């Protein structure tokens, strides 16, 4: 299912070892002062690097590697633009610990990341989940699913695509929330002084 044959191994690796940790990498970017749109660009570019890389399957800590690729993309962008804008004292504070959070070691193997993805998938709209279940568990074709639901194949296709987009979208907002939560915690720690 979903484009069998080419790169199945890579897809599985990315699904199991990188995607669940993507929000943390996004949070890091956001905290580094990257806008939402640029954030998406960096992440997409990082996936592209993984896609094009030779022998990625042999890398043992894929999430840490993914984080490293993203961070280097960000750094070389900063380097090429020659200017680092520091607009407020808060930004200076930020840049001081950009490198510490999150550490690649902390990204890998965090069970909560997996639980979170599972929850995201459990929360997909009913019709969406129904379609995925029929396709995957009952192994019905899209045409058969359409017939059972009394809709056109087009609707099934759109609904499936929407499900995938919803998961990606959820990972995205999870990243912003992580960054905010981190900011809040940091703010609380500073205030008493």
């Amino acid at each position, binding site marked *: 299912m979903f*484009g069998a044959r080419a790169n199945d191994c890579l*897809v599985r690796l990315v699904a199991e070892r990188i995607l669940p940790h993507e929000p943390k990498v996004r949070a890091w970017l956001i905290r580094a002062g990257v806008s939402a749109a640029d954030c998406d660009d960096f992440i997409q570019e990082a996936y*592209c690097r993984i896609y094009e890389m030779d022998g990625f399957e042999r890398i043992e800590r894929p999430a840490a*590697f993914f984080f490293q*690729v993203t961070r280097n993309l960000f750094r070389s962008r900063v380097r090429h633009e020659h200017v680092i804008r520091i607009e407020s004292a808060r930004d200076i504070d930020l840049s001081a610990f950009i490198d510490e959070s999150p550490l690649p070691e902390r990204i890998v193997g965090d069970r909560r990341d997996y639980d979170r993805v599972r929850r995201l998938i459990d929360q997909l709209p009913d019709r969406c989940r129904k379609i995925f279940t029929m396709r995957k568990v009952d192994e019905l074709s899209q045409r058969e699913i359409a017939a059972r639901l009394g809709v056109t194949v087009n609707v099934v296709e759109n609904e499936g695509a929407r499900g995938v987009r919803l998961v990606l979208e959820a990972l995205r907002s999870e990243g912003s929330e992580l960054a905010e939560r981190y900011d809040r915690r940091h703010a609380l720690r500073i205030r008493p002084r």
Partner: protein
Amino acid sequence: MTRQTALEIEAEATRWLMRLDHEDSLATRVELSAWLEQDRRNRGAWLQARAAAFLIAHSINPVGSANGFPVNAVHEPPPMTRRLALAGACVGVIAAVVGGGFYLALSARAYRTTTGEIRRIPLADGSLAMVNTDSALQVDFERNMRTVRLDRGEVWFRVAHDATRPFVVQSGLVRVQATGTAFCVRREGNHAIVDVSEGTVEIWTVGHEDHRRPAVAGDRAVVANAAAAPPIIAATDVSRNLLWREGKIDLAGRTLEQATDELNRYNERKLIIIDPALSRERFYGVFNVDDPAQFAIAVHDSMRVPVHVSERGDIRIGAGAD
């Protein structure tokens, strides 16, 4: 033409996903690969979308059934099986050699490895030596003493238990003694590094026997060759340090400089960092020790720095490499 946003590309990628799922024909594939060719960002979005679809497909929870999320996703692959295999091989060696009973007659033997060579040597007493790249050692087994002199390089030992004949490795003035233990000794210019993978060893330097220290499984000891300082002992990830036995290296946050030094031990074809600013960048990932080109390409991909790989000769990393 306005540049497509990442979100627009993402939406397209998910549509391709469903289209291919619905109609996996040659025509669809040709069209799809044209789309993938068009923009590298399309390829990134495609991989990401396929991964998301994989997760949904594998963790979708049909009513009344257990959740099918892949279990092995949560764990790093255990290195246990290979260890067991090694232990099994060792038992075989002991049975064959000790059973023969001819170990008493053997005198000193020298072994060496060339650059890039990793050699497994069953010793006469049933112990096993795994000799890393560019190393030289002399094995001398006597009636009441087993001595290995490490002249150069690095060796991992699995010592056959024999309380009546201590097993001592000499690295310069450093001494490491074991009875039935597995450990690794690496000889450096002015010190030795000892990684203990099983049991206990005792470590000291000649002339400073009062500083004799035990190190246990999971420890790494760094011992100065001549200085009066006692060994420095700290916990380490021994199985990671010993990946070389499988021809691999886990960089785990080492700097580019350390990584290239390490890989250069194994290869005639040297990695050279041209741009000193890169030396302190940190690296993660497991690489094959005998494939510096693979490493250079990973550096290139992750850091966007020029890398010049010639058919023969050195591999240059950094601006001005090409």
